[in-house]
Each structure stands twice: as C-alpha cells, then as structure tokens.
C-alpha cells in the first residue's frame, strides 16, 4: 500500500467533528474496480524496482573483499568501540597494573583478572596481571574499561568483525589482547609512570 493511496482516501466525515490537529487513523478505503485489479500498482512497483537496478550500489560484500581497499572495505570512524586490546610500556611488557578498575567498572562483568607481583627484572612497578581475560560474548562494548583505566593500558580498537567457531575462542586472554594491539600497530601506551615507579599517580594541579 503506497503513500499516495492513503492520501487519496482520507478520513470520513467524522473528522470534521474532531478538535483541530487531531486525525483519525485511516480505515480501509473504498476501492474502485480498477484498483481492485491491482495491476496498475504492480506495474508501478516494478517500475521502481527496475529504476534501482541501474543505480550505484550502496552495500558492500561483507568480509569478502580486500580489507586494505578503503573503497571496498568499511572502516568505522575513529571512536568506534570494537575489539579490545592491551597496550605495552616502553620495555614491551604489558602496561596493565592489575588494579581491577576496568573489572569494577564493567557493567557486564566480563573482565577477569588475577594480579601478581612483577618478575624481578621489571623495574618500573610492583604488580601486573598474571591472568587477564575478557569474555567477548558477555561484553557489551560500552568502553567503560577504557574510561576507567588509570594507566591507559586497555583500549577498544575499531575492529568489529569478531567471529569465532567456539565459545572458548571468544574468551580473549592477555596474550591475545596484546597481539591485537601489536597487529594494529597502536600498542604503545601514552601513559608514563612516575620516576619512582608509582603508577596511576594523579598529576599535581597548580594553585588557583
């Protein structure tokens, strides 16, 4: 049923008694015998279809085309919240200090961390995550983990095509999350530890 149809057969005489600005919903309009044939309307619809066949396509073949070709492969704009990754410090170690802020902020409770003292040859901090897992099936991609992180260690990339064959494969562990950042070439954290190795320190504000 096209829009023109509705307009042609408006409301009945009852509409006049209604307050101004109030309309009744359209009922079944009475049809002439030409309309009852439906053939003119079929022809109009097909006309519309054939017009679009020769226009330029708006859609792309999802995940079938060359990813490096921006014309064919859709990249979301910056700020899109996709797959998570863990960043690194200057020494190449995981930047995370296992403070559990992301896990505490996570509304889906999909982040599981186990903290541990750092190996003795890491000299910039005391604790790191022995285990860091994100259950991507529970994640709602809200980005609260990135907001909560005091050391800029976790972030969401723009990668959105996250498919896997099993549920187990959708639980991303620490190494997988670090590799995501490496592959994208954006794994170095912008945060600097304080000279004494205390992470997450708030910079002192100047007096007003």
């Amino acid at each position, binding site marked *: 049923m096209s829009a023109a149809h509705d307009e042609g057969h408006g409301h009945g005489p009852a509409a006049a008694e209604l307050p101004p600005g109030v309309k009744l919903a359209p009922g079944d309009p009475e049809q002439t015998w030409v309309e009852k044939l439906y053939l003119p309307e079929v022809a109009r619809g097909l006309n519309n279809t054939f017009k679009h066949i020769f226009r330029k396509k708006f859609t792309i073949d999802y995940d079938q085309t060359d990813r490096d070709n921006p014309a064919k492969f859709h990249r979301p704009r910056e700020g899109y919240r996709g797959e998570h990754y863990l960043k690194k410090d200057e020494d190449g170690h995981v930047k995370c200090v*296992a*403070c559990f802020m992301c896990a505490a902020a996570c509304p889906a409770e999909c982040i599981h961390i186990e903290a541990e*003292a750092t190996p003795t040859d890491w000299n910039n901090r005391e*604790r790191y995550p022995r285990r860091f897992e994100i259950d991507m099936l529970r994640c709602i991609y809200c980005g609260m983990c990135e907001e909560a992180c*005091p050391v800029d260690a976790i972030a969401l990339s723009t990668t959105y095509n996250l498919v896997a064959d099993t549920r187990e494969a959708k639980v991303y562990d620490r190494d997988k999350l670090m590799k995501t950042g490496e592959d994208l070439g954006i794994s170095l954290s912008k945060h600097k530890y304080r000279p004494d190795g*205390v*992470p*997450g320190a708030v910079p002192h504000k100047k007096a007003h």
Partner: protein
Amino acid sequence: MSDEKKSEEKKPAAPPAPPPGGPGGPPPEPAIKLPKAPDGLMTLRVDGKDHFIDPKKYRNLLDALNDLGYGVPHFCYHPGLEPDGNCRMCYVNVIDVRSGKPIVGPNLATQPWSMYPKPIISCRTSLDPRGMVVEANSPPVLEARKWVMEFQLINHPLDCPVCDKAGECMLQDNSFKHGQADSRFHEHKNEKAPKELGPTIKLWTDRCITCTRCTRFLDEVAGTSELYVINRGDRSEIDIAPGHPLDNELMGNVVDICPVGCLIDKDLMYTYRAWYLQKTDSVCPACSRGCNIQVNAQKEYVRRLTPRENRDVNNFWMCERGRKDFRYINADERILQGRVNNEAYPVIAAAEEAGRLLAAAAQQGPHSVAGFCSAWLTLEELHTFKQLFEETLRSKQYGLLEQAGWEAKEFPKFKIDADRNPNRAGAKLVLGAGIEGAAAGVIEQMAQGRVKVAYVVASMPHFEPSGELLQALEKVETVIVQDLSRGPLSAKAKIVLPGASFAEKDGVFINSDGRMQVLRRAVDPLGQGNDDLAVLQRVARAAGSEQKMLSGREVFRRMAESYPELKGLNHKVLGRKGQVLGAPQPEAADGD
C-alpha cells in the same frame, strides 16, 4: 575581661554579699540552658539536638558522638588503643555553656575567645557529666577537617589503583567525605622507598600518614614494640631497629588497623580487591579461645580472615596462627566427592551406603559399630552424631578425636590457648563430660577385632591420627571416614565422605570460657554442597532414622528444647557476639 580576671583573684578572699553576676558573686546565668538529664545520665547537645547519655559508658567524646551516629572521622584513634590525638581529624567545636562560645582552653576566662575559635580533638576530650554542647558538623568544623585532610594528603602518593587497601581505606573514605578534589600543594612529594619489616609485613613508606596506630598496638597489646617512628616532621617514618624484625604472633593486626595501605601482608598481597570480598561473621577454629572473625570470601574462595570486635573474647585482634590457617579450605588435598572401594561416588550415594552398612552391623549387637567424632564439629553436628549412635544404632561405643595442643601464649592484652579443639566444651555438653576418655576404650575394642563398622567423623585440618588408632582401624572390616582432606585416615577407609571446614557450615562452637558463638556459612560446601551436618543426617536416614534433613539453625532450635543449658536460645538470640552458658535469658526468645 578584666572583671573576670579580678573575680579569679578575689575568690579566695570571699567578699561579703556581692551582687549576683558581678565580680566575685555567684556565677551568672549560663548563656545556654541545658535540659536536666535523668539520674546518672548527662545531657549532650550535638548540633542543637539533646541526647541523654551515660558518661561512664564512653571513654571520650568521639566514642559518644560516633555511637550517637554523628560519624566523626578519625585516623589515629582506635577503640582498642589508647587515644593519641596526632591526626587531628576528629575535630569538633565544644561550646562553653556559660558564655555560649567555643571553649579554647582551661583559662577561657582570661582569653578573648574570638582569637581562638578553634576546634578541639574529640578523641582526647572526656565527657563532662555536668552537660556539654558540641558542634559536630557545623561549617567551621567541616572547614577544619578539610584542611586536615589536605595536610594528610600532601605526601601521600595517591596510588590507590595499585594499593591493596583501596576500597577499605580510611584515607579514601575520609577524603571522599571531608576532603577536596584537588591539592594546592605543588612542591615535590617526599618519596620514600618501601621497606621489608619482617617475614611477612611490608611497609609502603610513602603511603604512611604517621598515625602510629601500629606502634601503639605493638606497645600496648602485643608488648613487643618492634616498630617506632624515626626522623621528624614530614620525614617521619615507621621503622624497625636493626636486627629486630617485626615478627610476632599478633603482627597481622597492624595491617588491619593501618588506616591506609602502608602496612601490607605479603602473604595476601595482590590476591584480593577489597570491594569483591563478601564478609561473613564467623568464629576462628584454630584454638579453643574462639576469636570472633570475619571470613572474607570472593566467590567460592576464602581470601583472608580478619578479626571483628568482641570485647569479651578477642577485643579487636586475632593471632597469626589463626589468621593464616585457611589455605586447607581450597587445598588440592580436599575431599570433594564420596568414594566407595576407591571408586568415585556421589556424596549422597556414598553416605547412604555408609548408613546401610552401619545399620546392618548394628543388628549384630551394639559392640559391632564404633564411632569417632571430633571437637571441630559444631554442636549441631555432635548432636546429630549422638542421635545416630544412641537412637538409631543403639550403641554407646563412640569417642572423641582430639587435635594435639600447641604452645599457649599470653600477650599483655591477648591470649592464645594451648587447646586446639575449638568446640571441646561443646563436645562435653552434648556427649557428656566422660567423652574425653572414651576414645581409648573404643580403640581397644577395635584392636580386639570386635568392631565390624567404624564411622570416623574427623573434619579437622592438620590432624595426625595416633598410631594406635590407625592400627586399630586395620582390624575393622569396614571403615567409614568423613574428613576434610586425603591423608592416613582416609587411606584406611572403605567409604570416604567429604567433610566441611568452618567456613562452610552454620553452627555453634563453645569456647574455653563457655561462650556459645555462631559460625555462619561463608562459602558453599565443597563436598557437592553437603556440609558435615548434611552428610551425618544422610547417613542417619539411611541407617533407619526417621529424622528429616534439617538446617543447622533448626537442629539448634530443637536442641534448645532438650538441653536445659540451651533453653530459650537459637542462632538469632546468640547473635554476633554469642552468650555464655548459663547466662540469664531474655523472656521472648522465639523466632529465628
């Protein structure tokens, strides 16, 4: 001003009939008239509201204000220690009743009050039985606390994300309530390196606010005085004397009472975050003292044990032996399911098999079944055990397994008992005073081969059975063992049943002072959801008992009807702090 000064001088001379209110005369009418309190009580007016309180009940103004719900913040004050008054956080204004102005010192009369309208610390202010007027939350008081808070944070590193105390830190809480978001301090902070104070305690020196709670604890309660403050001013730090590390049986308490994350226990470091811990009131089973504790669990794992206040038992403290003794709960050796003839069985099926074997053996006479229970079982479990033997199996052949004792220790304000059986008094109450010597007789009967089926309910961690017991069990056809972990006892057993640790059960222990205290379930029982009571009841039902499956509370409620000592009691009446056996009961004690 000068008039009042004169009056001070003239008082001894006692001039004749001075005019009231004038120099040397009777005191003028007070500016604030407080309502008269009932006998024995005093009037405390806080922020315009009058309270009648008993001044003898409270040690100082801070205790009284916090008990009335005014929430005066503090760092250095701890109810279990002498007040020190160094943190200055508990500021309040005390108003002079005579002049209606803040009191600033003893010689108010000679000083212009407007020069010193300054607040005073409530932890070192005693209550005046004649009545007091206090401002606990007035704008000048809140302003003063804000300044104190800013000073406390000057050298604090604000490394809350990596600090183990985050989430239960007094500095965080008070900063949130009374502080401000930004600091005006823009010089460099004092950066002090962390120190190892002893085998388990680590000092994060830069987090310290020098409240000296730790040094006062070690001076007053432990009496060992390992810690003291070195240097002065903002360079003050807690330290040990060379060669004298912080290593005593009460050292874990300094971690609990540290208001910031300065003192951290390395055994527990990084293993938990405070906001995930579920805290359940319980009782420490390590010795017969029965210290009141909280089991801190995260999901199904017990992460740590912390003491809770009970002035009649442990005050605010617990010892290191009890605090660190929880690893057996989630140890690999724990028995998690039933075993029959070395084959894995569901717990219920194994318990029913055990019950059938016991019943069959009991048919041959009361001497062909034997039982052992331990003083680590709750009153309810001991009662169910007794019912199983005396009513269902019609045998009195049972004894008590005892944990070997350890060295007792006494500190100036704390005591560790030598007896490691937390419910020995309970076993005596339920099974009779003669139970302690009964085990030898049962072992002899077993050694002579008269016993067909033996049911051993140990559920004790670190239990080392005696050689005689193990030899005697060799002579028994069928041994049924219910224990926490695999060991020499369960190796002898034909049927193995899982036991439950103290954190997995609801029940009552009676400590060495005869105080009944309630344990509450902190984590689900690991033996497929069956704690000792459930397993015992299943065994009893399979052995022919008509008793329904009951919770610990319900068993205790029924026990209260049959034991005169427990009359009128239930878990709710016992409450958080327990009751001494034979203490007078309130009239209405029903409902649970």
